[in-house]
């Protein structure tokens, strides 16, 4: 690292510039995490009161519960399904915008069209599926009208399907943006050279576009995985209470003031998340990627 050779003045200036950021992140990110970590070792009186101390009882309880495994399996199922769909849609939407739309201004306009909902309320976008997927929703009405089905489909809303639909609806943008950015940086001359050398369009996709979009895919994956694994309200609302994830169980625990078990479960989840994210980070230098 070159930082070891930086003069002390530059170090001081750098820290002065990021001081406000650090002053927010320490009390509102580092400290809360430490509080949750501490709470996971505390005992509880069952009424929300915490007794400082050191006990692994909460961890034993969480790890011994059959429910934990079920919750993690459900969370992983949602994460993997959402990841696959957001990746496929996100990749091809970005590919379309970068390589198929010839007018640069139009491409930026279409790109913005994709991003606008990101700046609106997630909850509203989630509940907006109700008039479509509900028992008397548009999709059921249409299918009944066409005679495809006789009974309205009940699996559309308040099911795992609805949960995945809501996730994909909300999170595809997190794939499109980083993949779009890395694809836009691919030098078009490279593709021309490949064509001149006799590459088929499939070869170009396989040997140039996919490898060079890797960093975008990695960044998008970090976003999608961490958001799905940390979510609780989509699971709670869209499954109609039928499914649960690790964090939605955490939410219920907090609701009944079971802070230590909730904290222990949160610490475990954070460890899992950190493991996944650092695994992804091994394939891409995110900092270099972002600052480039």
């Amino acid at each position, binding site marked *: 690292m070159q930082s070891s050779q930086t003069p002390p003045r530059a170090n001081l200036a750098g820290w002065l510039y990021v001081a406000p950021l650090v002053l927010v992140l320490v009390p509102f990110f580092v400290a809360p995490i430490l509080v949750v970590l501490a709470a996971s070792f505390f005992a509880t009186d069952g009424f929300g009161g915490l007794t400082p101390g050191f006990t692994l009882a909460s961890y034993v309880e969480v790890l011994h519960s059959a429910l934990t495994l079920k919750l993690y399996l459900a969370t992983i199922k949602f994460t993997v399904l959402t990841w696959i769909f957001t990746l496929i849609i996100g990749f091809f939407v970005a590919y379309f915008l970068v390589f198929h739309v010839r007018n640069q201004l139009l491409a930026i306009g279409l790109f913005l069209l994709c991003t606008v909902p990101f700046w609106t309320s997630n909850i*509203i976008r989630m509940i*907006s599926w109700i008039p479509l997927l509900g028992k008397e929703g548009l999709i059921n009405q249409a299918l009944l009208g066409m005679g495809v089905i006789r009974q309205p489909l009940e699996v559309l809303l308040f099911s795992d399907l609805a949960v995945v639909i809501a996730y994909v609806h909300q999170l595809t943008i997190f794939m499109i943006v980083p993949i779009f950015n890395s694809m836009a940086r691919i030098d078009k001359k490279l593709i021309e050279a490949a064509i001149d050398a006799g590459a088929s369009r499939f070869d170009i996709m396989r040997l140039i576009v996919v490898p060079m979009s890797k960093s975008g895919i990695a960044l998008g994956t970090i976003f999608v995985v961490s958001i799905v694994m*940390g979510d609780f309200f989509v699971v709670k609302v869209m499954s109609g209470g039928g499914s649960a994830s690790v964090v939605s169980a955490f939410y219920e625990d907090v609701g009944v003031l079971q802070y230590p078990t909730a904290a222990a479960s949160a610490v475990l989840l954070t460890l899992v998340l950190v493991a996944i994210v650092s695994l992804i980070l091994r394939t891409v230098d995110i900092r270099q990627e972002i600052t480039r």
Partner: protein
Amino acid sequence: MSAVLADMPKSDVSKTVAPATTKAIAPSKGGRPWTFYVLAALFAFYVIALYGPMFCIYILSFQDIRGGLVFPMKGHSLHWFVDLFTQVRTGDVKGSFDRSIKLAVIVTVITVVVSFFAGLGFRKRFRGDTFVFYMMIGSLVAPGLVLGLGTGLLFQALGLNASWYTSALGAQLSWTLPFGVLVMFAVMSRFNHVWEEAAYDLGASRWQSIRLVMIPVLAPGLVAVALFGFTLSYDEFARSLQTAGSLNTLPLEIWSMTLNVTSPSLYALGTVTTIVSFVVIGASLGTIVLIQKRRGSATKG
């Protein structure tokens, strides 16, 4: 997102390459390959799926008093909007709306200032910069509900009252700042150091070069940071849930409505809050385009 916004003036660079490339990708003399039509269909499907449901609830919010949660439309009126702001059973919509806007403005100002300076700081390497960077990434990917609970417990342990303008403000900043700084990275990577050095050569102080050179040059990027700050705060939910104290912000109000209100007033609230978002997005993007246009005409003239 903002990286692309900042790209706008540069589009002429890639335009020079574009004609040859499109020909190369679609060798059959300007005709489109079949993949174009497949992907265009996919794109259209995506955009329809993205906006379709949202527009359904906007339409359904304009039903009259017989209205239900699904189609078909039952009459049209503004009944549910009036209901939203006058009925007590739907909760304190007005108050939470007011709080959310105020909070979003505070968060926006802090996010812009802090992200701007952090962006300046991260341009040069300094001892410990990687640590700060990963602290920020951690704050971004940490489960919001867990962070919120930690903040709530922390305030409790310190004997402080949780409220929307203290604990919730901090919890929201832990979410908006990483986004703001990431946007600043994209903006800064396009800033030419020569301008700053020229300012120093002409005798500008550090503060003068920031005020007279950097801020005007980076203005479109700063507007993008503000857009992120405002909308992410205005719609923030998971981190506010345990930190807002006794008075709700708007997303918390919507959350409690999704659990117990089954009338179109829920949709009406969705329509109202989305209109606010659209106005903010439109104003921000408009400002960015305006600044770029002025610059374009200034350099040409």
